[in-house]
């Protein structure tokens, strides 16, 4: 009696013996269970994976575009300078030093009125009159979105007679940038909702069709995790395969964007391709597994 008592007590307290061969066999079993579940899902597998691939393609394409637009905005920001025309009596160097102290100002270049005059005279035929041009400062701003505030900060200086910058262009790029960024975030939410819903329902059907079997497994003492892990893996695998298939159309988008970059001679964003691929797999797998998880929570009482 006491020996039986001991074995039961020990068995109930301990988990399955852990040596690597045992674990390997368990991993193998769980993999087989996962494949079995997928086999049972039949033709529906194709619909699930295609749908996930489609929405991940939309996400990937948009995310990739967003990165490109960001790099365009950045690049344009670099060439966008504010031209500041000074009053005749102003000392260019003093003003330049003051402007340098303004936040977000990266560089200030002084264009003496003599230079501007020479340039102008080279371009158009002007009679030999006295140089009417003011000294000019070219102010470079760190980021395109800061141009406006820097512009306003310089405008209030008394020695400034006039200013200009490609305000419209900067604004448009900024708007485009905001639009693609916002859409990317929105699409991430849509990807989440759709993937989780699809996987949730699929796993619910799997659980439903295996209801009796799962009940028997439970009664016979099959561990909860052994029942759950294949279902989670199934969801995660759909996400993985969806992402894998989405790589094909993503490649097309990527090539298109690369051509655009080459045309404008603006370097493409570095690591953009890798980032998008990683993001797609991450979202696919985590939302796939998440959908399974929710389904298990709701429909599997173990």
């Amino acid at each position: 009696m006491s020996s039986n008592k001991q074995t039961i007590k020990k068995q109930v307290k301990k988990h399955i013996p852990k040596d690597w061969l045992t674990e390997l066999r368990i991993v193998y079993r769980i993999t087989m269970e996962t494949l079995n579940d997928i086999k049972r899902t039949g033709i529906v597998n194709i619909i699930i994976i295609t749908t996930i691939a489609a929405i991940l393609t939309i996400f990937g394409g948009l995310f990739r575009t967003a990165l490109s637009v960001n790099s365009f905005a950045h690049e344009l920001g670099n060439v966008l300078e504010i031209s500041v025309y000074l009053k005749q009596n102003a000392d260019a160097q003093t003003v330049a030093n003051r402007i340098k102290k303004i936040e977000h100002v990266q560089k200030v270049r002084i264009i003496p009125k003599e230079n501007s005059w020479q340039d102008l005279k080279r371009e158009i035929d002007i009679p030999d009159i006295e140089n009417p041009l003011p000294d000019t400062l070219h102010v470079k701003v760190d980021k395109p979105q800061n141009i406006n505030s820097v512009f306003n900060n310089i405008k209030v200086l008394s020695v400034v007679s006039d200013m200009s910058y490609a305000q419209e262009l900067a604004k448009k790029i900024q708007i485009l940038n905001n639009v693609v960024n916002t859409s990317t975030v929105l699409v991430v939410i849509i990807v989440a909702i759709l993937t989780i819903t699809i996987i949730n329902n699929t796993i619910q059907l799997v659980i439903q069709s295996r209801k009796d079997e799962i009940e028997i497994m439970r009664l016979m003492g099959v561990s909860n995790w052994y029942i759950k892990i294949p279902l989670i893996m199934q969801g995660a695998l759909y996400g993985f395969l969806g992402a894998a298939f989405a790589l094909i159309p993503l490649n097309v988008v990527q090539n298109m964007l690369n051509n655009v970059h080459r045309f404008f001679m603006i370097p493409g964003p570095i690591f953009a391709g890798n980032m998008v691929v990683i993001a797609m797999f991450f979202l696919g797998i985590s939302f796939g597994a998440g959908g399974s998880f929710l389904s298990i929570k709701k429909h599997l009482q173990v």
Partner: protein
Amino acid sequence: MIQLRSITKKYKNNYALRNVNLDILSGEFVFVVGASGAGKSTLMKLLYKEETPSSGTVMIGGINIANLPSDKVPNLRRCMGIVFQDYKLLQNQSVYDNVAYVIRTLGISTKEINARVLGALKVVGLSDKIKAKPTELSGGEQQRVSIARAIVNGPPLLIADEPTGNLDPKNSMEVMQILDQINQRGITVIVSTHDSAMVDYFRKRVITLENGEVVRDIQAGTYEQQ
């Protein structure tokens, strides 16, 4: 091996079990008898932790399973064999796979699984049916498969809830004899039944339930009081 103390199980407002106190020793063969609705299945479910008592303690092998955390329940169930009236076999899997299922999930080697499964099937006399599907077997054979599955992990305890409930007298006798043989190997066997012929034939300890109460507990007893 098993001690029940002041067990009460209440479903909403009816009592399935009332103040049940029982001691079952290691190696015993016990019949739990009673009319339908007497509480036999409820008692069995408490033992394999499918139900939790409303009050009282269920000690098995020195642990109180009344408050066993749910993640330990599978471990508990692997320490016992459970046999049901409706066999609960996986219909689309062979006899062999049905018996092997649980020990496969434990990561045991194929060689050992093979030895254990064939051993268990030999005990129930189905060595020649290992490839058959449950649908190709008679009720008695299906129940024997489920008994093989119950003992394949070498448990010290076997619980059978009306194992002959769906069987004719001949098959019932075969199944009971197998359970008796298993008991003779030292495994504690608890069988609920309302088959008086079987109970009277085997003359084991008989615990009688009536409306959830233990009204009789007799060694080498019969179904009805004599």
